[in-house]
């Protein structure tokens, strides 16, 4: 039976009902209609459903919605400031870090999670952070390039 829960999603308190077995991914997509978070394998292998849960990048298909009760969740819809893209989003566009765009929200959330913890990562740290995100289009090189450029842009902004 569906039970009530409350999650702060992209800064907004959302109260809704979900089955006890409902994943955070399904809750985001089906209950809150936030379809930017993608369902690829639904088994924790592809990373397309990655969101930030209390600041940590997690595969939302492996998190029960109710276990995220009273938590903070950030999805890809919560990054841009009105029309202005988040630096990670902008870098993915500028550096060709996306093609079909289906794995992209997950990759971007992994990258944002990394940069929140480690604003100045090495290339190796970037590669490690996206090790759980499958992308079948890009071959990953331009993704790494994009994340490193985003880190640089965010650093420059802090200094300015």
């Amino acid at each position, binding site marked *: 039976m569906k039970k009530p829960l409350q999650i702060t999603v992209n800064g907004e308190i959302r109260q809704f009902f979900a*089955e006890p077995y409902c994943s955070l991914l399904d809750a985001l*997509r089906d209950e809150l*209609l*936030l*379809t*930017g*978070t*993608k*369902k*690829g*394998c*639904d*088994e924790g*292998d*592809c990373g*397309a459903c990655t969101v930030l849960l209390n600041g940590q990048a997690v595969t939302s298909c492996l998190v029960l919605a109710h276990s995220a009760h009273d938590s903070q969740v950030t*999805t*890809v*819809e919560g*990054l*841009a400031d009105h029309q202005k*893209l988040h630096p990670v*989003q*902008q870098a*993915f*566009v*500028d*550096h*060709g870090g*996306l*093609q*079909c*765009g*289906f*794995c*992209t*929200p997950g990759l*971007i959330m992994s990258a944002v999670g990394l940069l929140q913890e480690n604003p100045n990562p090495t290339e190796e740290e970037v*590669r490690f952070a*996206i*090790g*759980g*995100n*499958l*992308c*079948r*289009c*890009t*071959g*990953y*090189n*331009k*993704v*790494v390039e994009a994340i490193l450029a985003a880190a640089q842009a965010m650093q420059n902004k802090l200094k300015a």
Partner: protein
Amino acid sequence: MTTSYQTIGQPVSRAEGPDKVTGAALYTADLNLPGLLAGKCLRSPYPHARIKSIDASAARRLPGVRAVLTGQDIPENLVGRMLRDFPMLAKDVVRFVGQKVAAVAADDLDIAQHALNLIEVDYEELPAVFDPVEALEAYAPVLHPNFMKYAGRADDPQEHPNAMARATWGIGNVAEGFAQADYIFEHTFRTPHQHQGYIEPHAVIAQVDGQGRLQMWVNCKTPFLLRRQLSEGIGLPQDRIRINPINIGGDFGGKGSFMDSHVAYWLSKATGRPVRMVMNYIEELMAANPRHPAVMTFKTGVKRDGTITARHARLIFDSGAYGAFRPQKGITYGIGAIGPYRMEHSQIDSYLVYTNKVPCGNMRAPGAPQSTFASECQIDLIARELGMDPYQFRLHNLVRDGEESPLGHHWRNFMGKPTLDAAVREAGYQAPKMTPPDLAADGGDWKVGRGIAVCERHVGAGSSTAKISVDGQGQVTLYTPLQDTGAGFYTMLRQVVSEELGVPYNEVSLVPWSTDDARFDSGVGGSRVTHVGGQAVYGAARAVRAKLAALAADLYGWPESQVVFKESMVAAAGHQAVSLGALAARSGGLVEGDFTYDSERDEDLTCFTAQVAEVAVDRETGQVKVLNFTTAQDVGTVLNPQAHQGQIDGGVMQGLGYALLEELKHEDGRISTLTFGEYKMPTIADIPPLRTVLVQSQSGGPSPYGGKAIGEQPISAVAPAIANAVLDAVGASVTQLPITAERVLQALRSQPA
């Protein structure tokens, strides 16, 4: 080649990028409609069985279930892209594990899944055949006794009822060529199923509206061909079916088949409500349309000096239980198998064979990664046997510009040697081989080797249409029937408009068409889009430009031939320029132009690829580590270098997966690798440093501005380059993909002491 373009040739970023990085871009499974039901199919657990009975009564009684359909409830029409051999739901017989036998539409997916568990099917198992070579034996069960009645089948006589198609190509007489040889080599190679691995599974929404018209949203890159297949299956005329545009989350050849489209229609028709069907990834790996496995025997005759006298390839492609996902009537798989080598006698015999396994479809360069693996590995085995360096052996035999290809074509401006030389140079092929210090320190017995492989592939052809409009505010809108698979052509097409009309590419609005809006489009794939879609858009842009120039001549008395389009302005020397919008406004409405481009494949033009892998192999464990990978690609004008490089990086990555990791493993017809944990695709940890060198061909290609093709070219030579590098490193000849540590170790142990 001239490079006096404004936008063409610039590495501009994706105009559609912002939508894709914010979650705004919609894919099929993201759509919601009032009253939307969830559809799901029950699948066969047996590879070959007779359906004795189906009892769906308990499922029908479950609250929330709106329809349950079996093969009894829908017409028996067989469907397919060309060969129509696939029942929409199995009625009497199932022929592979995962075949659909019943379908449910319910209020939500949980109820639908529960309902499937309540359906009782009584099966009687039948003898099955899993190996395509065995399927051609006299004792093999005949999988399609009614094959001769199927629509769309190949006309040529079959050697065995399980051989759904065969084709032979070649020149000369191979028996004569072998008689001239000093040595004859024969080797057999095997390749596995490869799943396309798009992250977005197949998805479809069908809605039968009040007038009985079908509205469909589906991640299909060939919507016009799908519309025809739907019509043949469900009996609605094509003009009663509308396939709506939607983003596609990766294709790689796999998103051209119908999957659940017919079933979704029947469920919507039965319930009067829209139905969404999304395959989960277990279903994807079990029952989608992966690349054909192949068993390939190559016989090659050579002179002592390394000159090839004849080559005979016998290629057996395992099609699985149905041929319905194959778009050609005959077969084209393996057509380039013989390699780009000079010879007077060649023969390719290619077969497509039924087995009780997942039906196969197209994946990036269908047929070519299989045959290139066999062909290019054998080249190295022969070279080494003759004591020649594999590079020198290839140089000795490679077709030169102006010579006849081994299938009798006369490739114009053939770039084989310069491209091969570029790859060898860029890769440092001839430099000393050093084991990297981190590997040397880890205690294994690592050896470094380098391997080369080459291939060539056509520029695709087909038909496309485009329309461009300019309104009184200067807004330029491009209409295209091409659906965005992600390869970057929505930006490349905008660049073509930008180039011709002098407006910024990212201010060109792009509107994808539904199937109602255009006559026909061949769809995305087959190294076609830059050429065919590009020429359609180019033609439409030239048509608009001509209308605007005529308008300016008419209004302002400018010489029509001197009108230029630049920075959103229209100008002529010595006159005050006007904005594009102001000029269009004077027409009294929109200025529109459209163009339909039809083309046949030009067999005398090809794109050449040469790749070099550098690997380290641990003799103790058989582990292979790719240290560096170099691609040299023959190109014409590169319209967008960023997207072009993206195709090379992605193609090489899929080739690396094919070489080292990917295999749908079977046990008696049951695929056991049903998750990404078991079906291993490359992650970032698997990607070595990649180098690319582009070799400019003077003639260019048939795409606008002289572009060639890149989507399929970079994948086929990757696996043999790696296999040849392993052979170079430790002398182990691995003739079966993927090249796992176990297979390397086995090959090492089977070496003569």
